[in-house]
């Protein structure tokens, strides 16, 4: 049985098909028609709702795509939809700002936009209260990030950004703030202590029994996997649920990982960052960005905030998509996976994890427990490039991560990994060889660019042609070298100080913000 708050109402669900999405639950069971289906694939944001959960004694508000979320993810949380914001006849400040700035035209995307803005407002106001400064300026980048997963076909977004600006600049306390303690108390009272489940029937009937288990410890998870070797693991579900909504499959046994605390923890040691496999992407952003700024920027363009709030780093790896964005960045960083089966652990460098198209080294019943990254690389170039048709919320045509160490002007180590160029995220070994022990110079780069043709024979598809993928991948190497010229100069020789500061010349269109 799962327990959650639907706004202020406590809900308990034990009997329901666990393949039901939150969107369908809202529209078909609760008859809440404010939340819309625009695509049922997490790409348009019309179905955005907000989950509030207790973190460090506070409520953390996160926008999610209700079409990609299954009910087990609601347990112990508060689910807020567009209907919950208005109080009697009074619109919520977020709603009023959208009216005042003419932020809706056809109105169909609007409920989702309202919920994204609501979460944005809650997070912005929390930042203000933490910084104890009510005058913290509107942060455009945060507003853009909050809205990147909400498509609007009518307005051109300008009035919505204007509404966001007003929301970001003026925050008044609302009913959710006033009810905060009560909400926290209720949510705390419904935290699970042991494995629980929902299924489509109380007892086995003529229908196939469909169950979703929510273990709370790794031991419970191990046991469940032994009892149900064919069970499907469910982390964020942002890819898996597409099998339900787009391929119309139905899973008989799901095991939800989001209640296992140890899988949701991040540990920072002197030498490593250890990220639990079920940490949502949005929550590992800051620690990664601190050590690997370019990886951080990649995460900012990784799907949408709604997806990053649900989707996990472990899921992005286990999913083993050739176009997943995290693997190339992790390969270049030298990440190691901690895998577990029946309580037994093993460690595997991530570049050995991917075997073939959507095939990994995971044995049946084995799962990723942690992702371990070395801490900030000293004196090395670590860069990530994502190329897609649209800058935000798009899948890469090519994703490249380059990690180079230079010693006395020569390349002493090179890890170069690509997504979108082969059936798996893969290192460019010929390219690496062409660089290794060579002078870090343009001629070397051109050799590495040529060598790339021996590493990959990319596909042509609707995202990009093979020719473009190869050409862009080669050019990325050149770009990395050019970028390194200005970056390396001040540090190349500790004794040499540049006589004048060179003006920064942007090298990426994303430098313009």
């Amino acid at each position, binding site marked *: 049985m799962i327990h959650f708050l639907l706004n202020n109402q406590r809900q308990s669900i034990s009997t329901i098909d666990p393949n039901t999405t939150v969107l369908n639950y809202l529209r078909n069971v609760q008859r809440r028609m404010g939340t819309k289906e625009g695509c049922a694939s997490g790409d348009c944001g*019309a179905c955005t709702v907000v989950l509030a959960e207790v973190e460090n004694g506070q409520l953390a508000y996160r926008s999610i795509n209700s079409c990609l979320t299954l009910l087990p993810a609601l347990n112990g949380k508060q689910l807020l939809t567009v*209907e919950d914001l208005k109080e009697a006849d009074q619109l919520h400040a977020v709603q009023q700002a*959208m009216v005042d700035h003419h932020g809706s035209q056809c109105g169909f995307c609007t409920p989702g936009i309202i919920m994204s803005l609501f979460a944005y407002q809650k997070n912005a106001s929390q930042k203000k209260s933490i910084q104890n400064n009510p005058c913290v300026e509107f942060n455009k980048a945060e507003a853009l990030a909050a809205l990147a997963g909400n498509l609007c076909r009518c307005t051109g977004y300008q009035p919505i950004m204007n509404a966001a600006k007003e929301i970001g600049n003026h925050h008044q306390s609302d009913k959710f703030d006033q009810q905060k303690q009560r909400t926290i108390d209720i949510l705390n009272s419904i935290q699970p202590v042991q494995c629980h489940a929902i299924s489509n029937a109380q007892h086995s009937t003529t229908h196939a029994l469909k169950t979703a288990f929510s273990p709370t410890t790794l031991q419970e998870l191990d046991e469940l996997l032994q009892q149900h070797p064919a069970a499907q693991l469910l982390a964020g579900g942002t890819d898996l649920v597409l099998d339900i909504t787009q391929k119309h499959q139905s899973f008989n046994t799901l095991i939800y990982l989001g209640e296992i605390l140890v899988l949701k923890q991040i540990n920072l040691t002197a030498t490593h960052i250890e990220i639990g496999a079920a940490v949502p992407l949005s929550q590992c952003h800051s620690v990664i960005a601190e050590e690997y700024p370019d990886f951080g920027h990649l995460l900012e363009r990784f799907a949408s905030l709604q997806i990053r709030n649900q989707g996990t780093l472990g899921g992005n790896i286990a999913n083993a998509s050739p176009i997943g964005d995290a693997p190339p960045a992790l390969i270049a960083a030298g990440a190691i996976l901690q895998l577990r089966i029946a309580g037994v652990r093993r460690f595997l460098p991530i570049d050995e994890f991917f075997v073939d198209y959507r095939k990994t080294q995971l044995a049946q019943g084995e799962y990723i427990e942690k992702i371990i990254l070395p801490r900030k690389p000293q004196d090395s170039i670590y860069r990530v490039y994502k190329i897609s048709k649209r800058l935000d919320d798009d*899948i890469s045509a090519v994703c490249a991560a380059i990690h180079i160490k230079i010693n006395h002007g020569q390349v002493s180590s090179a890890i170069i990994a690509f997504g979108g160029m082969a059936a798996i995220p893969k290192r460019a070994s010929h390219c690496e060889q062409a660089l290794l022990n060579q002078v870090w110079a343009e001629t070397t780069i051109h050799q590495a660019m040529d060598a790339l043709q021996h590493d990959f024979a990319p596909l042509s598809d609707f995202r990009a042609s093979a020719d473009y993928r190869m050409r862009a991948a080669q050019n990325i190497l050149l770009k990395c070298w050019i970028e390194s010229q200005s970056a390396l100069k001040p540090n190349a020789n500790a004794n040499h100080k540049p006589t004048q500061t060179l003006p920064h010349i942007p090298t990426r269109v994303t430098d313009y913000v």
Partner: protein
Amino acid sequence: MSKQASPTPVKSRAELEQQLTQDLKNGVGKKIPHESAARHVSGEALYVDDRLEYPNLLHLYARLSEQAHATIVKIDTSPCDEIPGVVCVITAKDVPGKLDIGAVFAGDPLLADGVVEYLGQPILAVAANSLDIARQAANAAIIEYAPLPAVLDVKQALDNKQFVQESHQHKRGDARKALQNAKHRLQGELHVGGQEHFYLETQVSSVMPTEDGGMLVYCSTQHPSEIQKLVASVLDLPMSKVVVDMRRMGGGFGGKETQAAGPACMAAVVANITGQPVKMRLPRIDDMMITGKRHPFYIEYDVGFDDTGRLQGINMQLAGNCGYSADLSGSIVDRAMFHSDNAYYLSDALITGHRCKTNLASNTAFRGFGGPQGMLAIENVMDHIARHLGKDPLEIRKRNFYGKTERNITHYQQTVEENLLDEIISDLEQSSCYAERRTAIKQFNQSSYILKKGIALTPVKFGISFTATFLNQAGALIHIYTDGSIHLNHGGTEMGQGLNTKVAQIVAEEFQVDLERIQITATNTGKVPNTSPTAASSGADLNGKAAQAAARILKQRLSDFAAAHFGVDITEIRFNNNLIQAGEQLISFDDLVQLAYFAQVSLSSSGFYKTPKIFYDRDKASGHPFYYFAYGAACSEVVIDTLTGEYKVLRADILHDVGASLNPAIDIGQVEGGFIQGMGWLTTEELVWNEQGKLMTNSPASYKIPAVADTPLDFRVKLIENRKNPEDTVFHSKAVGEPPLMLSISVWSAIKDAVSSLSGYRIHPLIDAPATPEKVLMGVTALRQQLAAEQES
């Protein structure tokens, strides 16, 4: 009467006189929020799929063709019937009336009849107790095909002369001779991509059988009267038995003009067979596979010009990829031809429009209706001439603008009156600091190795009116109730563009009453009949005028009554800010209405409008097809990455002409939204079909419309102020739905400008639309190869 339930406090004479001195607070010209804004943001606005469902509602799902062109050898639906919950399966033979639902021309069977003509064409539909069961059952049917040759490429169709309609020409002077005599001559070709509408609400209809054998249809459509006609036609019913109700659409953009009919008619056929209510809502992928899009075009041009870049003659071929049937393609290719001049005097011109038949979904109306493709073609020519002569493209554009007293006749013989091009361009050139930025960009490009910037300032001149002249008509219906509240209905449909708000403002202005008094109601074929589609930017022009006509009839009756009642001359009756002045007497609108009721005055009226002045002789390709033109201009600056082809719009300045704005907030929303939508068409929105004719970009995962971060970093949008439409349009406003879309051509030109900078602005880069990062990089590569070849030789 509610009047008695809540008596209005009696105002003193002084208070009334004070009220009289104030303006109406939310009439015409005011920035009123969209009538549904408060309901949009609270989730209370209901769309068709949100309506309360009856317990016996059936859900309908269509099985789509897996082949682009084939004979259907066998359809076996027995596996569908074995699935519990399935109620009804229909194929072409189950349609009791006419199978063809072609809007103007035949060729669109509701369900494929013996042959499929595109991959995605509905073949059968299954009704069941749930959508899941209906889908499962539809996919269980066994369909066997015998493949036929499929044509997917527009050039191939053109070579084969496979057309859905015959080609048409606009001709002035002797283009061939002018080309021969011209000092300079250039030829080129251009592929222009199509565009998926991507309305956020997919196609949906919900149909209820009525007791008299008719149907009540809730349908998300821009054309309720056509849905009424087609539902009646497939059921073999008189139109009088079918009522279509349309409160609001979750976006339309032309995609719900003809293409809403399929789901409505399929649902009606099943409702007719079963006697149960039936709903059909297309899942996103199905919507994208089944319905037509903006027409892709293939364009060839041959152009002659003098040393200053002024056109001497042009020969242009515009080949629209219409898909498998005519749909509205005739008028769409016509509009492309009408707009192949955009803002320029073409001199001796031969413009040929082809309507190519391919085995794709039938392409259809989309904001601009062929105009954008024609305008893109001529703007490309302007850029090409500029590079050839080594001049700034803006100089070439200005050199070719229509004149005010000469060189002011289009290639279809309409005189361009009230030409605002020079003023708008000159204003925008200054306010956007075009010249200074052009210089700054050149400097930047010299110092930046990877990134290059580009800028372009492009004009828009867009003809307003349906080119099918008879469509330029509209009706409205107004009831005034005894408490003074007003029920407003008109033939237009609300798809987000704010039409209902504008029409209500017009009625409020006419009666001089507050907007809150006016109840906006769903478009309903039972109230206003025989309506035209809400399309061609005409919604407010036509329906606003019709509602104004109805309001004026009622106002006249109330005035006549007031004059008689108060014993004053009719000329002494004035309506002002919720009051009526009758000589020295002052009376509230409510009180006058009540008095009029007791005096047995009719308080209900319809209104009608037809656009004057327009005519067109298609055989002679000559006439006055447009009531007037709407103008605008945009200046866009972009930065491109010459190593990856990525780009970003840094700044866009827009100046747009809406005449005297009915509602500046709504008009600005149309301008901004149209610009961004057009930018999507020309940049990231790429439709890709595979070799089998399957649309591969069939969901938002693969088809990328602009997201918030794609908008210009600096976006400055202005309406031209103090400029009334000289024509007698409603409050001298101008249509605004479509014209701003073409402002986005500036982005495409700016991208090409940035690429051209690599050649010192000497070479015109070949970059088709949409200019995806891939096309930009390929354009860069081709240009660099050309430069290298020049160096060698």
